[in-house]
């Protein structure tokens, strides 16, 4: 593939998808009797237009990068992890729990590995259950992860509203030590936004996952199982092992997302702290085509829509932005393969 063709194939499909979504968005806004220009302007001003809004976008994108990577890793192994929602919550809860148990006054850098381990373990265990059930008994991971969402979220709800909580609230006591600094502490314009240094952890995770998937033997095996499990097995890959490990690691990555709120923002676990971020992770992974770079970009897009939704809430109802998100997902998942096919067809006819 020539350089030009590669660029065309990378830029044109998402461009078409976004333009399609934008036109549908215009029509939606018009149906509410508002001016599309004004609404989109407000949406941009409230997100990328000022440091606070941008900080909020970064904050929301951080959680979505984790859940997107988690779902993306599963997809690469041919597994559909619908459980990121509860894995995220479990990771956040375990980190908060460790935070209550740790003595006060430990430097943040020393605590960080403990928190990372706790969050990864929390999410990882929730992810490993469907993994083992699939590898051992062939139980379908979609069913098991959906059901586990209910079980885990109900259990965490119970714990935070009845056992480990501050009276009259739905959150646990604050961490005693090891809270991460917010971006606002280092760069004054970000003041007040929830963006925090967990974003570095998200970038590191994305890079590490890219390296693991495309540069290691295990990653190759994982992708081979995802493409064609029977062929992979014939080639000597332990498919059952790859399956449960992939789901466990997927859960662990989703669990790390909980740190964004617990360690970086509020410093406690709160019931429903990231409602929907796990499910939105599925969209992020699909739109990002399960590639770390794509996932980071898709996470920024969905975070912008989510924060922008608050900014335009005065003009159009929140549900309009939810619909717009769904339109983006549909547009990307239908138009990207279609545009690719067209591009390749055009190239072939040029070559002949």
């Amino acid at each position: 593939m020539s350089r030009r063709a590669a660029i065309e194939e990378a830029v044109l499909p998402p461009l078409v998808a976004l333009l399609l979504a934008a036109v549908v968005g215009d029509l939606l806004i018009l149906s509410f009797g508002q001016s599309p220009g004004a609404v989109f302007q407000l949406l941009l001003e409230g997100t990328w237009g000022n440091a606070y809004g941008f900080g909020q976008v970064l904050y929301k994108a951080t959680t979505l990068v984790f859940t997107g990577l988690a779902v993306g890793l599963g997809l690469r192994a041919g597994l559909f992890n619908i459980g990121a929602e509860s894995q995220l919550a479990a990771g956040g809860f375990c980190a908060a729990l460790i935070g209550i148990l740790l003595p006060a006054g430990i430097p943040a850098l020393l605590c960080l590995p403990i928190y990372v381990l706790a969050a990864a373990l929390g999410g990882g265990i929730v992810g490993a259950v469907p993994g083992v059930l699939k590898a051992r008994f062939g139980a379908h991971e979609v069913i098991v992860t959906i059901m586990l969402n209910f079980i885990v979220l109900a259990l965490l709800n119970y714990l935070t509203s009845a056992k480990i909580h501050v009276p009259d609230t739905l959150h646990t006591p604050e961490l005693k030590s090891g809270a991460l600094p917010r971006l606002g502490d280092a760069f004054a314009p970000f003041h007040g936004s929830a963006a925090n240094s967990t974003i570095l952890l998200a970038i590191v995770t994305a890079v590490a996952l890219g390296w693991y998937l495309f540069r290691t033997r295990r990653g190759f095996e994982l992708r081979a199982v995802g493409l064609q499990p029977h062929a992979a097995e014939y080639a000597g890959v332990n498919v059952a092992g790859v399956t449960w490990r992939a789901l466990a690691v997927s859960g662990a990555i989703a669990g790390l997302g909980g740190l964004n709120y617990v360690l970086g923002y509020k410093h406690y676990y709160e019931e429903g702290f990231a409602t929907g971020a796990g499910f939105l992770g599925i969209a992020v992974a699909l739109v990002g085509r399960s590639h770390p770079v794509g996932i980071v970009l898709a996470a920024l897009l969905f975070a912008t829509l989510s924060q922008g939704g608050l900014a335009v809430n005065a003009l159009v109802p929140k549900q309009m932005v939810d619909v717009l998100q769904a339109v983006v997902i549909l547009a990307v998942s239908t138009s990207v393969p279609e545009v690719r096919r067209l591009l390749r067809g055009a190239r072939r006819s040029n070559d002949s």
Partner: protein
Amino acid sequence: MRKLLIFVGVLLAVHIALLLVHPSGAAEPPTGDAVDVGIVFDMGGRGDKSFNDGAYLGAERAEKELGARVRFIEPGEGSDREAGLRLLAAEGMDIVLGVGFIFTDDLTQLAKEYPNTDFAGVDFSVGQDKNGRIIQPPANLAALKFREEQGSFLVGALAALVGNSKKVGFVGGMNFPLIHKFEVGYIAGVKAVCPDCEVLSQYAGVTPEAFRNPGKGKELALSQYQQGVNVIFHASGSTGLGVFEAARQTGKLAIGVDADQFNEAPGYVLTSMVKGVDNAVYDAIKRVKEKRFKGGIYQYGLAEDGVGYVYDRNNEKLIPPAVRARLEALKREIIAGRIVVPSTK
């Protein structure tokens, strides 16, 4: 390839054309010196027929009667609450309201950062320090609290007086202190008029889901009606819709909560324990307009008409005059302070 580029060009042209469309009714940027009001709703959002809608009604009245300009934000996830409050405060609203106890921490934080903006929190939960002293909210933050136990006391007395049974029922949503206030007041009201009556009291769960589970509400209510209960008071959000359903099915009575819920099951709703969220919100906006807003704790009880029970044409047949007189007497006793209604277990 060319077709594709033409397609992209057409999409772009349509998009730009649509961007320039400006419908006649579209919102104009605010001008003038009316009071600017920002409201962030609880997760449940509008349409809950309870306190979110109550706050909306109050704001709507302020729009009509005081010429206030109101902006609403409906948050999606945990971090949206602070983001919503902050967006409104940064836009220079005169007063920013958070609806629901869950806004307590965020409001306290924002009130400190924006000392020139007024804030108010519905159901704001006032904390206590280590010595049990009440921590006052910041000077620009009004905590709008309701004495639900007083209203519950009256409907408890009513349930015992017209129930024609030694057993009365209570169905709560989530088992936590805010709802205990309803339960405790209700039981006190029952015992005040019928010391040997028994209150069957059950909760739908321990999580916020317990406020959205009509199936569970119906199940609990049916079992209570079967045990000889004739009147059930629910404080359980939309779980209560199941209680009304059970009342309709068994031909017995239920008592609504927060707003007048007569329409949920006409003929089977004895009364409703109403909470005047709309009045509290309207008052807060009015005080801002008249430049006499002050922070602090505002308690809305029977004396302030912040809570009460419904008595109108819809349900007057269910409440005999003697019972009505007895309730009004109890109400006067509470307002005068001769009856002190407990609020905690």
